């Protein structure tokens, strides 16, 4: 065995000092169950504490429950992509991830337009009261975001910015799907600015967390 094929002494010592059995990470699908369970618990909790919107009948079951269900699935799927991204060599292609984010954004716009169209934009909220919706959506998104972030952090995302953005948008869509069942306002400006704004903000938070992870990693490599 020549010098090049032998493990360097300092590396061998570092490995030996920390060598113990580890359990392989479960597949992303199995880890996604945690996010899905979190989303289901959030639906139940929000409906229990806030109740269903009083004008739900004007939307009809398809726009109320159908759109919410699809949006929940899209949100959880984006969180699943974030979990996949956290396993080296297993992430989706960049174009695939961009398409998934675009699809999530398009669905959000579609759901907002469909809701406003079905009700004629009524009732409308005073513009500046929308910040309450945004704040509550972010609060609702936090558990899903934290569960996703914890699962991503337990792995090793080679592109943490992508993982963060996907997790942020996914958690935001889950929260918006749930808050859609409660918020009585249907005007397009309210839905696009405050509801979609919350999702965009969560995406930025995820992106920033990913960038911070990258920065910390770069510092560690430099040292």
């Amino acid at each position, binding site marked *: 065995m020549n010098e090049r094929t032998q493990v360097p002494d300092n590396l061998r010592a570092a490995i030996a000092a920390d*060598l113990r059995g*580890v359990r392989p990470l479960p597949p992303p699908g199995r880890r996604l169950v945690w996010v899905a369970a979190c989303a289901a618990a959030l639906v139940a909790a929000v409906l229990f504490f806030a109740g269903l919107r009083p004008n739900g009948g004007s939307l009809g079951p398809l726009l109320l429950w159908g759109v919410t269900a699809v949006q929940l699935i899209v949100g959880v799927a984006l969180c699943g992509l974030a979990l996949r991204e956290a*396993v*080296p060599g*297993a992430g989706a292609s960049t*174009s695939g991830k961009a398409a998934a984010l675009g699809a999530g954004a398009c669905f959000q716009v579609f759901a907002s337009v469909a809701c406003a169209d079905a009700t004629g934009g009524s009732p409308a909220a005073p513009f500046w009261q929308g910040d309450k919706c945004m704040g509550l959506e972010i609060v609702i998104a936090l558990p899903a975001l934290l569960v996703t972030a914890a699962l991503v952090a337990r792995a*090793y995302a080679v592109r943490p910015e992508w993982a963060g953005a996907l997790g942020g948008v996914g958690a935001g869509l889950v929260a918006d799907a749930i808050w859609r069942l409660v918020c009585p306002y249907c005007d397009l400006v309210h839905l696009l600015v405050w509801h979609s704004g919350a999702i965009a903000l969560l995406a930025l938070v995820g992106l920033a967390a990913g960038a911070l992870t990258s920065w910390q990693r*770069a510092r560690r*490599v430099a040292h």
Partner: protein
Amino acid sequence: MADREPTRVGDLTGDAGVTLAGFEANSPGVAGGAPSADPLAEAMAAYQRGEMESFERLWTALSGEVRGYLRALSRDAVVADDLLQETFLQLHRVRHTYQPPRPVRPWVYAIARNVFLMHRRTAFRRSRHESVADDELPEIATPASADALGDRDAVRRALARLSASRREPVVLHHILGLSFKEVGAVLGCSAGAAKVRAFRGLEELRAIMSASGGRP
């Protein structure tokens, strides 16, 4: 063209007279077709159970090619050696993220690439102003069998002059023997995109070699 078959430049360019047969993968478990059980995956599973000998087996099997890959990325032998150790340290820290029986090499190369990118980020200011003169091009690892090309130095120089985005898929597929699907997994693109980038890299490689008088 089958994904794992030894690649010939002629296969991709229509020029049957040019071959990259010497660029077949030289690592166990790749050359000569896919084996029934991946010894690297077995070693990795044993390493996850805490066996030091398995780490040594992984090092023996992978360190040479990962060093070559890092050298191709960094174009600096000393930096590549440093990054190789950092890659294996990182691999140790995140060994739980390997999911048997997935292929080990895309997982390792993805980590190596990330370590390189993190290094490049910190050295960005310095590297941005770096320019490499033709007569002091750094050494890029080429397998011994690359002699089949006739002028190994010309291949090495041409590889060093390829743009980074073209060089990487060429090195990963044609030198290290990863399938296009695995190259895509490492680079974060689809298998089709990896194939296109490798094809364009080969075209650029041929053009450079033709222009510099080396055999294309």
